[in-house]
């Protein structure tokens, strides 16, 4: 089947079999390798992408189902300046707070955090844990990941305030 999906604001048109998941479409057809294949059956969260602004598992969606949806992967997460290669606030916070070690879960974690902070600008640690409860990290023990998301939330909420006041 010939399908058309909007990925990181580019219309991607490819010929695929119906059985191809959105995950494999992104990695193999579009060639964006930042979305990671972990368990491929919806347990680990490594393949999380944003679909119409909400975090979903790309291994649990068929590419053919996503026709008409707007997908953002880790490569497109810096929507303000996607060409620059610069990190966005959440990505920066993960670096600063050591929110990763091997990095395999990180793209999923960041996109899950992105979806959370869009609807909840000042989450509690408990709410952050709830949001990332479907993303498995085998390195960090999650504490630094929660720290990273809390720091990102703080920075995002202060983004438009004058530096004098903070």
């Amino acid at each position: 089947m010939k399908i058309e999906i909007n990925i990181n604001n580019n219309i991607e048109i490819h010929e695929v079999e119906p059985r191809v998941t959105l995950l494999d479409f992104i990695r193999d057809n579009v060639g964006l390798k930042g979305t990671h294949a972990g368990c491929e059956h919806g347990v680990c969260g490594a393949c999380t992408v944003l679909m119409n602004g909400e975090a979903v598992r790309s291994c649990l969606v068929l590419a053919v189902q996503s026709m008409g949806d707007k997908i953002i992967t880790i490569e497109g997460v810096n929507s303000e300046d996607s060409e620059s290669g610069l990190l966005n606030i959440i990505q920066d916070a993960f670096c600063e707070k050591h929110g990763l070690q091997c990095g395999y879960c990180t793209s999923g974690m960041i996109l899950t955090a992105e979806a959370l902070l869009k609807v909840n600008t000042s989450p509690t640690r408990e709410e952050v844990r709830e949001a990332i409860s479907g993303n498995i990290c085998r390195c960090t023990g999650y504490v630094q990941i929660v720290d990273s998301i809390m720091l990102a939330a703080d920075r995002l909420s202060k983004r438009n305030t004058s530096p004098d006041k903070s």
Partner: protein
Amino acid sequence: MKPAPFNYERPKTLDAVCDFLAKNSNSLILAGGQSLLPMLSMRLSRPSLLIDVAHVKGFEEIKKIGNTINIGPMVRQSVALESSVLKNHLPLLIKALPFVGHPPIRVRGTLGGSLVQADPSGEIPLVAVTLGAVFHIRDGNDNIEILARDFFLGPMLTAMPSSGCLYKISFPVSKYSKIGCGFHEIASRKSDYAFASTAVQIEQNENGKIETISLGIGGALDYPQVINISGYNEKKINLKLLKELISEALLNIDFVGDFHASASYRKRVTIKLASRSFSDALKEIGYI
């Protein structure tokens, strides 16, 4: 881990869905896909055709008509959680939904898909049974109505005809002025398959008299079941009495025992969870 090949159709009407079902005996309906996709990937399921019902007209609607809440099968769990109609009229469903999967699963997962999947530990089937929901199914040219408590027959086993399509779920609206409810479950980690889950709804009339008590149990049995609690009319209800009544009601129920949790553990924990759910419900109506 890749699914075996299949064809894909995306019909826009219920008639077209039924046509595809009638013509292909090895076809499956794809709703949210959050349980079906893993089964396809592990090749536990090998349909020749997937019928994606996401674009069928009216399948995403939530409507209150008279004393009934009608829910389309494609209503996503995350959408249901934010629905003001459901918040006002089906508070038990709203309490249960946060236990369904993880947030990214609820974005895609649907109410209808979860009901037809009929996982014994599914929270939505449990609520449907507890609240006396009715499932509206189209099979060819026939419209069939099945009560939730007659629909579930065993683990992943339902009364759904092989060429049937669930097109509407109806929940009755309580006729009493006050509703209290509680939902509790236990799993090895949050949002995993529950070992035991309990749903309680208590309805009180304007004079403060408790009119109905509904207790549903899931996870611990082969399929969700309503447990009859009798003997509460004569006495003033308190938690101690309720615990006795629950234990009595569960005497002849066969609990599931497996690798994860023994039958006696499941029974013990069900009584505890049911007591907690009752406590929440009674607090909500200001009874305790």
